[in-house]
């Protein structure tokens, strides 16, 4: 493989992106316009009742705390997992496996008994605080779960769903210890993924246009090998994805997205974006195989763009439970999940969730790229 050929073709492809207004629009401006329009109109999908996964750490062990856990479990919108210790629970929270952790204090039952014995004499109460830790990477968790838990706790304490003075209080840990994230900050990890998805359309159009105007044929007459040609395409689109990610990050930074993570998290985020760009080249090649013209390529590309968009970026922040299952089949879901864990949940770069996401993204994206190359080479010579 001659690097001179690969570099020349890569340079050409990047120049195309910079110089063609239509390509510039599609790659950089269109995602922004789409986000604005979609953000204004998007509601929930499907309308089915969501189920929130919460963990419970019980320090009390008395019957009343067990009854409280049962009350939580009886609520159909909560799926309760009991943890033996707080550390394991916090690890799962930081990796997004549960959306909240409730820590029941040692004095919970005693406090409740003191209240029931003297409901009108606060001086006789034993105070207790139930701590609630929320997934900082989930807008749903921070907004929906606290009122639900407060309601269940109030109903359990004195049979009244409305909060009334009792010795048991609910302290939302994440809101006390850390600043509350804005809606934009919740969306930011998905935006990195979002921008890159439009590479699918760009790749498809580039191949079909070059086929239509005879450029691919012309390159085939040179000694350039199929491997060199494909390597140049993959490299150039990875480079474009990197530039996109840097631009999106800079804009997000200016708008206030400043996650409290070290440089390794940023480096890994860019690795995810680069790996993800491989699948977009693959989907682009599949589109270019099916599409006879560049016009058709634009339409067909949406068949791949939309599922990735709705199921795997910030666009699908409040997916129905059925859509959440389907989302596990698109690579963008794992990229957004990993970036959310890295930036918002502040998970370690070596945590099992991040590594699993990286493995899934890498394997699936390479597989999609391979399918794209094989299909394209089968129907159109490279």
């Amino acid at each position, binding site marked *: 493989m*001659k690097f001179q*050929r690969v570099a*020349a073709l890569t340079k*050409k492809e990047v120049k195309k992106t910079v110089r063609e207004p239509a390509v510039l629009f599609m790659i950089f401006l269109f995602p922004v316009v789409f986000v604005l329009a979609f953000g204004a109109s998007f509601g929930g999908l499907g309308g089915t009742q969501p189920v929130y996964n919460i963990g419970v750490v019980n320090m009390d062990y008395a019957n009343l705390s067990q009854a409280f856990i049962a009350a939580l479990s009886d609520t159909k919108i909560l799926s309760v997992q009991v943890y033996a210790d707080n550390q394991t629970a916090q690890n799962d929270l930081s990796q997004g496996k549960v959306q909240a952790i409730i820590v029941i204090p040692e004095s919970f039952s005693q406090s409740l008994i003191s209240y029931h014995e003297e409901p009108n004499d606060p001086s006789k109460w034993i105070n207790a605080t139930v701590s609630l830790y929320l997934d900082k990477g989930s807008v749903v968790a921070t907004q929906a779960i606290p009122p639900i838990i407060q309601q269940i706790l109030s109903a359990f304490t004195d049979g009244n769903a409305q909060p009334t003075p009792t010795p048991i209080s609910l302290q939302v840990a994440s809101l006390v210890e850390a600043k509350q994230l804005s809606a934009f900050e919740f969306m930011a990890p998905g935006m990195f993924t979002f921008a890159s998805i439009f590479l699918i359309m760009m790749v498809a159009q580039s191949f079909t246009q070059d086929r239509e105007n005879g450029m691919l044929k*012309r390159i*085939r007459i*040179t000694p350039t*090998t199929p491997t060199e040609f494909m390597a140049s395409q993959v490299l150039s689109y990875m480079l474009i994805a990197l530039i996109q990610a840097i631009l999106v990050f800079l804009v997000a930074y200016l708008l206030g997205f400043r996650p409290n993570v070290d440089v390794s998290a940023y480096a890994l985020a860019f690795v995810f974006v680069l790996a993800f760009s491989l699948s977009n080249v693959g989907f682009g090649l599949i589109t270019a195989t099916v599409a006879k013209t560049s016009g058709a390529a634009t339409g067909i590309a949406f068949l791949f763009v939309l599922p990735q968009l709705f199921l795997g970026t910030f666009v699908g922040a409040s997916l129905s439970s059925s859509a959440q299952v389907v989302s596990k089949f698109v690579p963008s879901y794992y990229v957004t999940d990993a970036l959310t864990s890295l930036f918002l949940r502040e998970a370690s770069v070596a945590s099992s969730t991040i590594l699993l996401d990286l493995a899934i993204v890498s394997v699936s994206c390479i597989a999609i790229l391979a399918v794209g190359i094989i299909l394209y080479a089968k129907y159109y010579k490279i």
Partner: protein
Amino acid sequence: MNEFAIVMERVVKRFEDVTAVDGVSLYVAKGELFGLLGPNGAGKTTTVNILCGLLKPTNGSVVVNGYDVQKESAKVKELIGVCPQETAVYSYLTGIENIELFGNLHVLDKDTLKTRRDMLLEKMGLTHDAKRRVEKYSGGMKRRLSLILALIHDPQIIFLDEPTIGMDPQSRRAVWDFMEYLKREGKTIFLTTHYMEEAEALCDRVGIIDHGKLITLDSPKELISKHGVENLEEVFIKLTGRRIREEL
């Protein structure tokens, strides 16, 4: 066989129920300027595509400079330069950028690339426009740039598929002069055209192809003399009963 740059034997190319090339055999000597003439759809471009390895013939064999085009295509691609019929240049690049891209695809070193680039731009009259984006070029300028892309690596065998189609007289004259220069340089040129005057003025030998069949092959003078006519256009009329450009 070594004196031949191109050897084409009993080549057939079928596309489903259409036979585009029907049993064509021809030999082009090294250093020869050979013209393949015929109306649109006669099989000229299909023949060029087979000769440069873009299309696999249904039957027959093609050898370029001693290399089998299908089995040794990498060797062949290093030897040939092809200027396709369509104006295949990148419009978003400048003239120089287009040339440098193709020079790099042929792995030319920087100095050679610069020397060849400047010489070809000068010969094609594009020096002053070389730094402009191709989207601003006229049709004739794009055609001349397309020709430069085919020649940047100094190929031994050059395929020119309708190189002057749609060109203004000034551009056409420049290309003709350049083809004569290439011939003096000892290059083998395989030219397809439906401009009879072009073939008559430039070619050592011409073959006339119609409906995929090679219907005659000789030098322009011999053909004109043999058929007792004034020019190649009349040779074509005599052989086929119609004018070559009526089908444009």
